[in-house]
């Protein structure tokens, strides 16, 4: 394991007796894009929540660049350079797009002028200039997603965790997003973890994959290794078969 990476070490999380994560170990390295995949309810969001301090960890450790941050509150973890987006978008609805992006830089303690400048840059980069003065609540879904990512980047994170950033976007929107995301880790020297159900998107974007099923790691490695992994095939086919049963 590398010194400068973000690591989950045997992390377990429980909800009222239900073991949502069971001894999961994962590593995000600066400069790489790691895809976190798995059927619905397999614990992907819970893992991100565990990394950012949003849910308590029963056992195991979270380590960021050598520093153990297990049990820290989300604010402290954010200030250490771990930024995230949420599966269900969480924007500041009565703040303008510009203010939304600026908040993360301000919370980090940047002087006002620098925070302004950084927000302005990100608005440019994410093609949000047109709606800079629109309130968060008034945006369409795709724009909300982009603002949330721009906001996460405004804190200049070392690690960026994105929970289904392309969900609900149309094809053009998600293609544009993919192009933007693909360049991020190198350009900003951060490690990126991305959860998504869109397999073609994940395959094109990610350097490595990590697969969860029922709260356990069932496979990890480069794309080809994972794609041919029997457990992965089984988990996906299995869950599809179950879903089909369910609908029938």
């Amino acid at each position, binding site marked *: 394991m590398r010194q400068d990476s973000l690591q989950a070490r045997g992390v377990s999380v429980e909800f009222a007796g239900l073991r949502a994560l069971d001894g999961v170990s994962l590593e995000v390295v600066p400069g790489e894009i790691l895809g976190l995949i798995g059927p619905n309810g397999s614990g992907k969001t819970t893992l991100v929540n565990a990394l950012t301090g949003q849910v308590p960890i029963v056992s195991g450790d979270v380590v960021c660049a050598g520093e153990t941050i297990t049990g820290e509150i989300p604010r402290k973890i954010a200030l250490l350079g771990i930024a995230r987006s949420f599966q269900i978008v969480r924007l*500041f609805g*009565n703040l303008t797009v510009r203010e939304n992006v600026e908040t*993360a830089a301000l919370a980090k303690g940047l002087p006002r002028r620098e925070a302004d400048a950084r927000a302005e840059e990100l608005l440019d980069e994410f093609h949000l200039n047109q709606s*800079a003065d629109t309130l968060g609540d008034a945006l369409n879904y795709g724009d909300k997603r982009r603002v949330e990512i721009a906001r996460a980047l405004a*804190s200049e994170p070392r690690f960026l965790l994105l929970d289904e950033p392309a969900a609900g976007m149309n094809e053009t929107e998600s293609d544009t997003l993919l192009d933007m995301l693909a360049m991020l880790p190198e350009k900003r020297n951060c490690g990126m973890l991305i959860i998504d159900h869109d397999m073609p998107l994940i395959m094109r974007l990610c350097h490595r994959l990590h697969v969860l099923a029922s709260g356990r790691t069932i496979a990890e490695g480069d794309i080809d290794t994972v794609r041919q992994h029997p457990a992965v095939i089984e988990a996906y086919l299995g869950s599809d078969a179950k879903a089909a049963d369910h609908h029938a």
Partner: protein
Amino acid sequence: MTSATRSSVIGTLVILTVPVVLALVISEALGIRVVDRIATIFCINLVLVLGLQVFMGNSGILSFAHVGFMGIGAYASAVLSMPLQMKGMALPELYPIVKAIEISPYLGMVVGGLVAAGVAAAVSYPLMRLSDAAAVITSFALLVVLHTIMVHWHQMTNGPRTLFGVQSATTLYIAAGVAILMIFIALIFRESRTGILLRAARDDEVAAGAIGTNISNMRWRGFVLSAFMAGIGGALWAHFITSFSPNAFYLKETFVILGMLVIGGAGTVSGAVLGAFVVTAAFELLRLIENSINLSGVLPTQLVGLTEIALACAMIGILIVRPSGIISAREVAFPDALRRYLPGTHFTRPKQSRSADEGGTQ
């Protein structure tokens, strides 16, 4: 603050000053005592409502304690500025040290604000970790505590009895001047680092935490500034009314100030100004009607409480139609076409605003 934000703050300030200036001009033109009185009351109410907006509007947390801080400011300024020869009569049990002090009532107003802010700073930190219902009920508890202290601290407040002999010092000009200053402070605070982060936490606490916002600290700052403004408002009121008892700073006043803010729209400074203006005007009009009906004797019984009932109904009505008040999320803005005429701003079209920002001064 970007130059675009700065110019819009100035634009909003100019518009929001209009009702205050209007009150002043009308009162001067008419020269009628009752109009001067109503205009002054409007300005004082405005200071109190703006103070409440600073905390409640930006944090989204309903605070009942506000009027308690108004009381602290009122008593602090009234007692400290009371003429020495009056003190023996008005406050027989007053501590000897305080008995020897007599400061100008204008200095008293500032001190009143500072004392209120000091008390708020000392007691509120643990409360600022709370949200939702817990925060509201603890703020109510704080009001009860402050009220009980005012009622029982005979040495300083004359207990539950009326405190007489407070210096008269609040003229319409002073009240209007302070009101305009407070509009400015509220607008600046809203756009400040603390203001933006406070509003962010209001909109989504989880997301605000996830970007590293120290939410309780931001709330605390807002609360202390809010108490400072309430203290000054209380002192202004004390030197206007010149005799009062602790009951002036309790549920009825809380309801009136809260009503003004909620009707106007707590989320904006514009809402606070509009609410104070509309409700003060309606209140005084209704009181006039109530008094003349009672004087004329057309009704077999005396009419009482018309004003409170009307305010309550207006509040219910507006909250049903517009739950966030009349002006909810955006401040009133100066029309773009006229912005170039504002003092101290160089309005630029949005496309050029980036280069303007880089050249702007902070």
